[in-house]
């Protein structure tokens, strides 16, 4: 296979849509052609992102215990160091963590446009300082890391619980008329009887923004359509399963956007 033929097949390669013979020929070409090897990896990374377009579907409840039982019964390959253990913060993690190398930094998903993100990150930092767990995030991570969430953002606001307690952030994207809502320390509800619902509040009127996914470890994330030109506040209430047409309980979380 020559370079021209490989170029022609990049899309099919990335999507693993080549025949067995073609796949072998392409693999051989990529081993000898640095240019196409790099391009193929890039294209395959794009193809892999298609996974995100599948709907999230709640698995049957029994699957969780099946998975965990299978894991408990399965030895790990040549255990050297428990990298995944980083998912559970441990004492001393901050000291052990190495600064990310340039190559890793370049993999960050959201582009950090120097002029734009620096200003936005400053807003985010200002909003986040004092936000409890988010403050801890800031302390253990660089401004650039935090800025990833603020790229393209127009404003960042604190989510308040019970009027004062900080419980997450709302990142607003004016150009896209969307808001990213990240909660922290939100209590779990009995899903059979209750759910969290998001609202856009304007002049005392509430418009539903949909249900907030059940928090895991206190954290929940939602992206909702929101226009700060027509509403100035986002609120979260506890409602019956499926949500309500209008809030039926006082807000547990509020953010002024």
């Amino acid at each position: 296979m020559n370079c021209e033929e490989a170029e022609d097949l990049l899309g099919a390669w990335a999507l693993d849509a080549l025949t067995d013979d073609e796949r072998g020929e392409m693999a051989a070409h990529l081993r000898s052609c640095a240019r196409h090897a790099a391009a193929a990896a890039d294209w395959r990374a794009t193809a892999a992102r298609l996974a995100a377009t599948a709907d999230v579907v709640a698995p049957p409840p029994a699957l969780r215990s099946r998975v965990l039982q299978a894991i408990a019964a399965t030895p790990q390959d040549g255990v050297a160091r428990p990298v995944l253990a980083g998912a559970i913060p441990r004492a001393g993690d901050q000291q052990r963590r190495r600064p990310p190398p340039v190559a890793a930094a370049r993999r960050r998903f959201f582009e950090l446009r120097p002029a734009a993100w620096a200003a936005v990150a400053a807003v985010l930092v200002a909003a986040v300082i004092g936000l409890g767990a988010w403050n801890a995030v800031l302390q253990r991570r660089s401004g650039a890391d935090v800025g990833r969430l603020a790229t393209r953002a127009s404003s960042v606001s604190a989510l308040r619980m019970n009027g004062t307690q900080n419980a997450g952030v709302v990142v607003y994207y004016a150009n896209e008329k969307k808001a990213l809502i990240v909660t922290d320390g939100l209590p779990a509800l009995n899903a059979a009887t209750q759910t969290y619902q998001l609202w856009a509040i304007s002049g005392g009127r509430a418009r539903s923004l949909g249900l907030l996914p059940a928090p895991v470890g206190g954290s929940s994330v939602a992206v909702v359509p929101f226009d700060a030109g027509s509403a100035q506040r986002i609120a979260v209430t506890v409602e019956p399963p499926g949500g309500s047409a209008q809030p039926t309980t006082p807000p547990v979380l509020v953010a002024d956007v």
Partner: protein
Amino acid sequence: MQQGDQEAVALLYERYGGAAYGLAYRITSDGSAAEDVVQDAFVSLWKQAPRFDPERGQVRSWLMTIVHHRAIDAVRRRKGRNERALPEGPEEFVATRGRPEELAEWTLEAEAVREAVRQVPDEQRRTIEMAYFEGLTHVEIAERMAVPLGTVKSRLRIGLEKMRAYLRPRVVE
């Protein structure tokens, strides 16, 4: 065996189990097969966890790659076709730490990718989806769509390029 790792996988399941199951179900259209795929994927993740380089990627990316591959293989097995080896090792990806901002990134990424797919013309998008979600080769797609093989190659290449172009300003490559 590391107790911390088991807790970490449990947390990953809480965070990404729905996405993994959703992808597996979309591909297999079979709840039982999707469950097997998800279990297999998490066990693979668990077995290979010690090999992850925390500085080099996202464990969710690797998880979803495994889910996709296993699900396509399940469909191919049903059709009596050969399974394939996983295309890349986990060293290409990095472990997650399961923090809220990481979940937020995943949510934003899903939004961006869906928008990128919407930018792709219908015929190209349908061709890409037949390859990704149905596991068809470009030869099979050409037969199914009754178009020349060259047309399928072009649709896959141009459609994917449109996605890349849309994501590029939002993605550091």
